[in-house]
């Protein structure tokens, strides 16, 4: 009987480069425990999105291996994609459809049956305050409402691990509060959160475990309070600037 991994993500000696470019990652190791609220931070071009793409199987590592809940990540292993959810930074749904129609479609692609989709759609639209607009086309929604639809689609199948790429960018305070509260609730119920953002104050509230990366290298990784104590910094933002510098970053 296979042992149950205590890790949500286990990256061992991973190397990756984009064709024609220098190594993005070289011999990278990173472990994220199951049930963690993990924050991945770094300046533009540091490799956050690439690392998430590698963890979700959108990209394939050149060397080493990446395991998600003990199973190898890769494009050939589509069935394991049921284990995680992904909330990209872009609005990743069909604007011509309503929230309910989007959830029906993405739910089906997550492998859910009709009845489960119906139940989950009702729950999510109620929790995220979209019940009244469930049958209206999303393209007429405000940015905040679209963010909530984006999140609802990412969690329709109750994933064990949830990747969030700047899930609150461009939203008002109320929507940010609602989204963060919902994510905390999900985490309480056992979902591992893997989160990236430039909103460091929000990140401090949400994340207990953080990693700072720059130029494809992990500069610091650990419990947020311990890291602040170790580097004698009062906030994540100060720690961020100390480790990554104050120069502009041009991400071309």
């Amino acid at each position, binding site marked *: 009987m296979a042992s149950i991994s205590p890790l949500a993500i286990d990256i061992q000696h991973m190397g990756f480069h984009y064709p024609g470019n220098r190594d993005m990652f070289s011999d990278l190791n990173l472990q994220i425990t199951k049930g963690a609220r993990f924050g991945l931070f770094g300046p533009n071009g540091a490799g956050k999105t690439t690392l998430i793409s590698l963890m979700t199987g959108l990209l394939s590592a050149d060397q080493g291996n990446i395991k998600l809940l003990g199973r190898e990540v890769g494009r050939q292993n589509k069935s394991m994609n049921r284990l995680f959810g992904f909330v990209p930074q872009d609005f*990743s*749904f069909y604007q011509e459809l309503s929230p309910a129609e989007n959830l029906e479609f993405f739910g*089906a*692609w997550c*492998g859910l049956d009709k009845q489960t989709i119906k139940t989950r759609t009702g729950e999510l639209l109620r929790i995220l305050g979209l019940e009244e607009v469930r049958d209206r086309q999303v393209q007429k929604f405000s940015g905040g409402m679209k963010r909530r639809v984006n999140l609802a689609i990412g969690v329709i199948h109750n994933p064990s691990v949830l990747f969030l790429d700047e899930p609150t960018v461009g939203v008002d305070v109320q929507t940010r509060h609602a989204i963060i509260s919902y994510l905390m609730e999900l985490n309480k119920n056992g979902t591992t959160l893997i989160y990236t953002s430039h909103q460091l104050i929000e990140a401090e509230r949400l994340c207990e475990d953080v990693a700072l990366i720059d130029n494809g290298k992990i500069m610091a990784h650990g419990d947020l309070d311990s890291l602040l104590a170790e580097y004698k910094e009062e906030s994540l933002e100060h720690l961020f600037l100390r480790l990554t510098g104050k120069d502009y970053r041009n991400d071309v």
Partner: protein
Amino acid sequence: MFKLSATIRKDMRILLRDKVGIALMFIMPVILVLVVTSIQSSTFQLINKNKLPVLIYNRDTGQAGRQLITTINKIGLFKVSEIKNVQTEQAMVDAMHRHDAMLGVVIPANFSVKVSAKSKSIAGKALTSFGLQGDTVKQAGDVDPLTVYYNPVLQESLRLSVEGGLRSALQLVESRETLRSLYFSINERQLPEKLENEMLNNKTAINEIAVSKEGIHHTPNATQHNVPAWTIFAMFFVVMSLGGSVVREKTSGSFMRLKTLPTSFMVGLLSKQVTYLCVTILQAAVIFSIGIWLFPFFGLAALNLPSDFAALAVVTIATGWCAVSYAMCVAVFSKTHEQSNGFGAISIVILSSIGGLMVPSFAMQGFLRSVANLSPMHWCLQAYYSLFLEGGGLKDVINNIIPLVIITLLLQAVTILGLKAKKLI
């Protein structure tokens, strides 16, 4: 199966909410078929009913010139008007503009004298060759040419028809003169009019019968030719909508999310094929219905559907499938909307040209006729013509369906290879 049905529902919903896209897919082809058929029908009527307006300036003062005008009139192709005192080419062109004539014919001065001299010469040679003593044979010069001015909008095929008509009129006039000279030389009296008419007036009728299969006769007309041809064109133009849909999906954020889900993108492609195959079949049904019920209200001949409905369904589905496969192939290799729309639209026009939709492939030169076989639209058109014009059935279109399906399968294979190369599946 639930994944596929949910995806088809999603694609159908998106399609139905794109009002402009629907207009492009249904209303524009109907307008196209209506306009092209009307124009071709007008051309047909111009020749067969309205007659082609022609101005004749007769600079000849003799009998042959008059006879030529009478003969041209009798051809039935022209509506003849005579004008006087035209001295220059520009004056003839101006007269054509004033009279709105497509053609102007100038009969040269001394036409009768030259025709008579040529006839006597030929009659003399003929009598000599018969061993009879005719008049002294004088070598006659050539008759001066007729000058024909034409409006540049006249198509070459029409001009060739006109030239053929004028040549037959000239031949008749010259033959009459020769016959008269011959008769006079032998009998020393005029050729009796009755005999002349019997000898020269061709009473042999020409019956035109369209070659059809199984004895079904529908007189070919602009509707029977144009509706199937432009229906194919409209179906292949689905590249604009389907290509755009696939490219939009590829470049949108939703595609990145789809790639992280436990479902192959092949389900998405299959759904699009099913959805847009339905669209192409519906397009054909709408255009055929317009041809049957609406065309008569525009003074056009109604479309006659083939008697073999099963064959019609098979050809329509095969055409639709090929059109959808072509659109998918274009979309997979296009990075932007502009690429898929630009390449898609232009390539469809090229494929329709070499496929015989614009110029019949039998009228093409040898090399182009071989190239036509590479266009899927050629096989679609041949199959439809076999049904709509020749009254054929399923067994008659199999030879067209097989290459069409082969091309479709090749397009599907290229699409899948393209997706694999781009790591999309």
